[in-house]
C-alpha cells in the first residue's frame, strides 16, 4: 500500500481492498462483543441483531473475493502486491468464520437465558472473550500499521486463551455435577466458550497471513497446542454412588 505504482488506480484498488477488510473486521469484532454481551445480559433482541449482522459479513467476503479476482486478472500483480491481494482473500475468509462463530453464540442466548443463571457462570466466559477480542484487535491493528514485530506476541496470547478455555471447561463441568439443572445452560456455555477459543485460532491465522504479507516469509511453524480439555474426565464422587 505504501508503494507508489505508476498507475494510481492500482493503489486505489489495493487501498479499497484493505478498507473493506477494515469494515469486515469492525463488524466481526462488534458481533463477538455483542453476542457475549447478549448472552451475559440475557438480551434476546441484541442476539437477534447479531444474527442479522452476519449477512453483512457473508456479503462482504464474497465482494472482496470477486474484487480480488478482478484485480489479479487485470493487473497481473507480483510479489508484495500479489501477497497483499491473496492475503486479503484469506483474511476475509477468517473474519467471515469469526462472524459465524459470533452468530452461533447469539443463537444460544435464548436457550441459556430461559432460566436465570447465576452470574458466576458467565464470569469466566467474559474474561475469555476479552482475551480473544484483544487478540483480534491487536492482529487487525498490526495489519493496519504493517508492524510485524507485534505479531509474535499475538500468538503467545493464543496460548493464554487455550489455557483459559481448559480451565473454564473444568469449571462448567463442576457446575453440572453439582446440580443437574445446570446441565442445559452449561452445555451451551461450553459450546460458546469453544466458539470463542476458535475465534482466537482464527485471529492466529490472520496473524500468520499478515506476517506473510509484510515480510514475505512464513512464521516459524511450531505452535504448541495447549487446549487440554480433551483430557478432562469428570469423576463422580463415591459418596453419591449409593443414592
Amino acid at each position, binding site marked *: *500500500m*505504501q508503494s507508489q505504482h505508476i498507475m494510481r488506480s492500482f493503489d*486505489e484498488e489495493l*487501498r479499497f481492498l*484493505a*478498507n473493506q*477488510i*477494515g*469494515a469486515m*473486521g*469492525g*463488524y466481526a*469484532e*462488534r458481533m463477538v*462483543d455483542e453476542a457475549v454481551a447478549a448472552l451475559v445480559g440475557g438480551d434476546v433482541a441484541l442476539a437477534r441483531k447479531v444474527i442479522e449482522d452476519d449477512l453483512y459479513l457473508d456479503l462482504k467476503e464474497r465482494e472482496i473475493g470477486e474484487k480480488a479476482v478482478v484485480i489479479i486478472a487485470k493487473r497481473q500483480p507480483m510479489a508484495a502486491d500479489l501477497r497483499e491481494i491473496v492475503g486479503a482473500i484469506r483474511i476475509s475468509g477468517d473474519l467471515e468464520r469469526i462472524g459465524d462463530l459470533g452468530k452461533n453464540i447469539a443463537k444460544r442466548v435464548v436457550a441459556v437465558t430461559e432460566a436465570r443463571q447465576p*452470574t*458466576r457462570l458467565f*464470569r*469466566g466466559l467474559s*474474561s475469555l472473550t*476479552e482475551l480473544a*477480542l*484483544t487478540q483480534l*484487535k491487536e492482529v*487487525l*491493528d498490526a*495489519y*493496519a*500499521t*504493517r*508492524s510485524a514485530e507485534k505479531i509474535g506476541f499475538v500468538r503467545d496470547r493464543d496460548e*493464554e486463551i487455550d*489455557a*483459559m478455555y*481448559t*480451565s*473454564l471447561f*473444568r*469449571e462448567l463441568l463442576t457446575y453440572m455435577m453439582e446440580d443437574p439443572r445446570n446441565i442445559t445452560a452449561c452445555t451451551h456455555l461450553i459450546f460458546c466458550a469453544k466458539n470463542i477459543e476458535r475465534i482466537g485460532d482464527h485471529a492466529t491465522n490472520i496473524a500468520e497471513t499478515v506476517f506473510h504479507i509484510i515480510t514475505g516469509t512464513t512464521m516459524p511453524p511450531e505452535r504448541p497446542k495447549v487446549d487440554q480439555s480433551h483430557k478432562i474426565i469428570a469423576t463422580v464422587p463415591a459418596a453419591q454412588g449409593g443414592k
Partner: protein
Amino acid sequence: MQEEQGAARRLLKAAGERVARFGPVLVAAAAALLLLDLYLGGTGLGAALAVLVLIVVAMLFPERQEKRGAEERIDGGARLIETLPATDLAAAVQDPLYIFDEAGGVVYANRAASAAFGPAVPGLSLQLKFRAPEMHDFIARAIEGVNGDLAIDYVERVPFERAYRVSATPIGEGTRLFVLLFKDQSEARRIDRMRADFIANASHELRTPLASIAGFIETLRGPARDDAKAREAFLQIMHDQTGRMARLIDDLLSLSRLEAKPYGRPGEKVDLRLLIGGVRDALAHLAKESGVTIELDIPDTPLEVAGHRDELVQVFENLLENACKYGSSGGRVVVSAGGGGPGEERTVTVTDFGPGIAEEHLPRITERFYRVDVETSRAQKGTGLGLAIVKHILTRHGARLSIRSKLGEGSSFTVHFPPP
C-alpha cells in the same frame, strides 16, 4: 518648551536612524545620480541638489514609517498565523487528532493520537485503524461532505474501555483534507459504569456474610439465648464477617476508583528498588505474623520505570501480601528484579515456596472474585479482588503479569514493564 525640544530631538534621532538604516541605498542612489549627471555633461551641482532632496525625503519618511512599525507588530501575529504550518498547530492540540485525505489515508497524526492509538505509519488507512461500523460510515460521510460538523461517540472496549466523542471537519476550502478530532469522554462513562458495577458486585458479594450474620443473630435470640459459650463463639464469627465486609468494600472502592480514573500514560519516573524496599518494610509485621522472611535479590543499579508511584506500591503490596499469606508454609519469599539495560523490559518477580497453584486455576486467578480455594481465602481474609486490582493497574501501565507455579514447589508472579 522642553517637551517640544524633546520631541524634536526624538524626531531627529529617528531621522538619523532612518538615514543610517537606508545608508547603503542612499549612497548608491547618490553615486548613480552623480555618475548620470557627469555623463550627461553636468557639473555635479544638479546631482548634489538631487542627493540633498533624496536625504531630506529619507529623513521625512521615518515618521510615517514609525507608525507603520506599530501596525506591523499587530498584524505580524495575524500574518504569522496565515503562514504557520498546520502541523505546528495540530501538534499543540492535547487531544488525539488525525489529518486525513479523501481516501481516508492518514497524512498527519499528532502526539496525543500516537499515544492513544499507537504510532501512525505513512499510508495508514483510517478505515483500517478504526474499524467500528459507525466510524466507517462517519468517515465516509465526512469525505462526501454530508455530515457538516456532526460528531459521534466511539468506544474502544479492549484492552481497557475508552470512550471518545469524535468529530470530522474539512480543512479550509478545496484542500480535500480533513481533521478527525477525539475528545476523551471515558471518565463520565466510567463513573456511570462504576456505579452499576459496584452495585452488582457489592450486592452479590456482601450478601453471603450478611446472611451468615443474620443467621447467627437469629440463633442468639432463640436456641442459644442462654448459652454463654455459644454466644461467645457466635459473636466472634460475626465479628470476623463484619471485618470481611469492611475489607470487601475497601477493595471494591479501590478497584472502582482505578477504573474511573482517566487514562494517561504515566509520566513519573519511579525507582522500583526504593519502592519495593518500602513495601517490604510496610509488610514486615505481616511477614512476621505469617512466619515468613522476605528476601530481596535486586541489583544495585537503579531500576526505573514510568508509572504512578501509589498505584505501583499497591501492586507490590498485593503481590507480597499474597506471597506471605498463601505461601507461608515455604518460610521465605524472594523478590528478584532484572533487565535494567536500555531497551530491555524490566521485570520484578515475587516468588514463594508454598503449596503452589494448580495449573487449571492459573489463567483465571486475576478474575474478580475467582478463588482457588474459598476456605483458605476466607481464612486469610482475602476478598478475591487483590490480583484483579494488580492486573488492572498493570494494564494501565502497559505492563503485564505472568504467573508460574508448580504444585508443592511454590509460585512466582512476574511483572513485566515495557522498556522506558
